[in-house]
C-alpha cells in the first residue's frame, strides 16, 4: 500500500538523516539534517560588528541525485523559505541567489541546485549593538528537496552564535573558501558596453545581444514565473557580435509583459543579471520582428 510506503520512506529519510548527522558531527557540529542532505548556518566573519553588515550563508549539502530550488523554481517545486529569529538590532537582508542549473526533462524544466550550494544572506547589525554578550542568530527553514523520482518536504531549525564586537572582525578561515566560491557563482551586472534588446515576436520574445563577439552558447533563466515557457528550447542564433535567442512565451502569460528580468549564462558558466524593457512595436519594425521570428522556426 502506498501509504505505508510513504511511512517507510519517512523512516528511511530519518535514519539517513541521523546517519548524516553523525557523519557531519565530526566536521561541523551544527549541520542539521534535511531530507537527503544537511543544512548549516555559517558566517564569513568571526563576529558580528556593530554598525556593519556581515555575510551569513545557508550551506546546503545534498546527496547525489537530489536538488533544491532557485528563487523562481521553474515548472515545479519551491525555493527554500527562511524565517529569521534574531535579537533586536539585527536585520537580515534577502538571499543572494547563485546562478541556478536547468534541471528536468523535455517537458518539465525546473531551476535549482544539485550537490551543494551556499545561499548568502547579508546580516546588518545596528551601531547601537552592545558587545557584552554573544548573539544567537536563528532561522527556521522550510524547503522542498526533490529527485526525479520523488519530492520530500523538509524543515530545519538552524542557528549560529557569534560574539558581538565593535571592531571590524576577522574572516573565518573555515568558511572563506565557501563564501569565495559562492560569490563567484552569483550573477553579475553585465559589462557597460554590452547591449541587449527584447522584442515581441508573437508566441515568443526575441532577445538580441551585442557583446562585441560571436556567442554560440547561452541559457536564460527568468526571474519571474509564467513569463517564458521553461521547457521550450531556447533557440540561439549566433551573430558576428553576439546572438539572438528565441524565448517562447509562457502558456500562462495572459497579460503583455513590460520587462523581462533574469540571469543570462554564457559558456563558462558566468551569469549576468539582465533586466530588459520590451521594445514597443513600431509599425514596420513590428512586422520585421514577426518575420525574424518565423526565420527562427525555419531553423528548427
Amino acid at each position, binding site marked *: 500500500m*502506498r*501509504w505505508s510506503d510513504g511511512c517507510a520512506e519517512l523512516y528511511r529519510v530519518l535514519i539517513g538523516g541521523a546517519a548524516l548527522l553523525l557523519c557531519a558531527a565530526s566536521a561541523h557540529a551544527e549541520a542539521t539534517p534535511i531530507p537527503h542532505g544537511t543544512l548549516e548556518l555559517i558566517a564569513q566573519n568571526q563576529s558580528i560588528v556593530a554598525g556593519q553588515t556581515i555575510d551569513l550563508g545557508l550551506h546546503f549539502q545534498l546527496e547525489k541525485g537530489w536538488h533544491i530550488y532557485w528563487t523562481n523554481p521553474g515548472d*515545479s517545486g519551491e525555493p527554500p523559505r527562511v524565517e529569521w529569529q534574531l535579537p533586536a538590532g539585527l536585520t537580515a537582508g534577502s538571499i543572494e541567489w547563485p546562478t541556478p542549473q536547468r534541471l528536468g526533462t523535455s517537458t518539465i524544466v525546473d531551476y535549482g541546485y544539485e550537490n551543494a550550494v551556499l545561499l548568502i544572506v547579508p546580516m546588518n547589525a545596528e551601531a547601537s549593538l552592545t558587545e557584552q554578550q554573544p548573539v544567537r542568530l536563528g532561522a527556521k527553514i522550510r524547503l522542498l528537496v526533490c529527485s*526525479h523520482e*520523488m519530492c*520530500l518536504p523538509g524543515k530545519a531549525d538552524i542557528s549560529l552564535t557569534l560574539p558581538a564586537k565593535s571592531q571590524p572582525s576577522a574572516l573565518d578561515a573555515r568558511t572563506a573558501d565557501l563564501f569565495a566560491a559562492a560569490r563567484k557563482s552569483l550573477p553579475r551586472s553585465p559589462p557597460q558596453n554590452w547591449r541587449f534588446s527584447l522584442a515581441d515576436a508573437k508566441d515568443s520574445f526575441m532577445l538580441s545581444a551585442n557583446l562585441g563577439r560571436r556567442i554560440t552558447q547561452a541559457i536564460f533563466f527568468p526571474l519571474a514565473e*509564467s513569463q517564458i515557457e521553461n521547457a521550450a528550447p531556447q533557440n540561439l542564433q549566433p551573430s558576428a557580435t553576439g546572438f539572438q535567442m528565441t524565448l517562447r512565451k509562457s502558456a500562462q502569460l*495572459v497579460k503583455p509583459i513590460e520587462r523581462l528580468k533574469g540571469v543570462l549564462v554564457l559558456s563558462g558558466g558566468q551569469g549576468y543579471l539582465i533586466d530588459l524593457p520590451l521594445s514597443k512595436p513600431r509599425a514596420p519594425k513590428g512586422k520585421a520582428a514577426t518575420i525574424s521570428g518565423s526565420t527562427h*522556426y525555419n531553423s528548427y
Partner: protein
Amino acid sequence: MKRSTPYPTLVYPALIALALCAVSAALVGAAAPDFTATASNGKTVRLSDYRGKFVVLEWHNNGCPFVRKQYNSGNMQKLQKQWTSQGVVWFTILSSAPGKQGYATASEENDYMAKMQAAPTAALLDPTGAIGHLYDAKTSPHMFVINPQGVVIYDGAIDDKPTPDLNDVPGATNYVSLALQQAMAGKQVETAATRPYGCSVKYADATH
C-alpha cells in the same frame, strides 16, 4: 524523417511553426484531447463519453507534499464530493511511473482512496505518462476543467497558495471551483490559465 513529401517544402516551416504555437498556447479554449484509460475500479474510461458534462482532471501523486496538503486537510475530498454531487465528472489521474513517488497499482489506489475517503468519479492509471503528456501535466496537483462541449476552460494550479503548508488551505482561492461556478452560471472563466504548482510529475522519462 524519411517520408515522401506530401507538401511543398516551403510549407514545412509553417507547419513546424504551427506545431510550436500549439505547444506554446495554453490548452484553454482548445478541444480537450481525448483518451482512453483504465480506472483503478477496473473500468475503461473514455473522456469523450462524458460530453455534456463538466469534467475535472486532477493530476495526483499521493506522496507529494503539495498533494498531501490537499488530502490531509480533506480539501481535495471535499471538492470531489461537492462537485460530483452537482453532476461534475472528476478524474484523478496517476502518471507516476512504476518505482517512482505516486505510482500505485489499482488495488493500492483503491486502498488509498478508501483510507482517505476520496470521492472522484474514478482514479485513472497512467503509468506510461501518455495522458499526462497529452495534457502537458507538469505538477501534482495540476488541474484541468473541461466544459460540456469538450473544451478546456481551466488549466493550472488548484489554488492561489503555492505552498505545501496545510495552513494555507483555508484562506486560498480555489481556481477549480471558481471556474466551475463561473462556467455553470454561463459566465466566462476569469482566471482560465495559471501556473500549476507542486512536485514535477514523476514521468517514466524524467531523468536529468
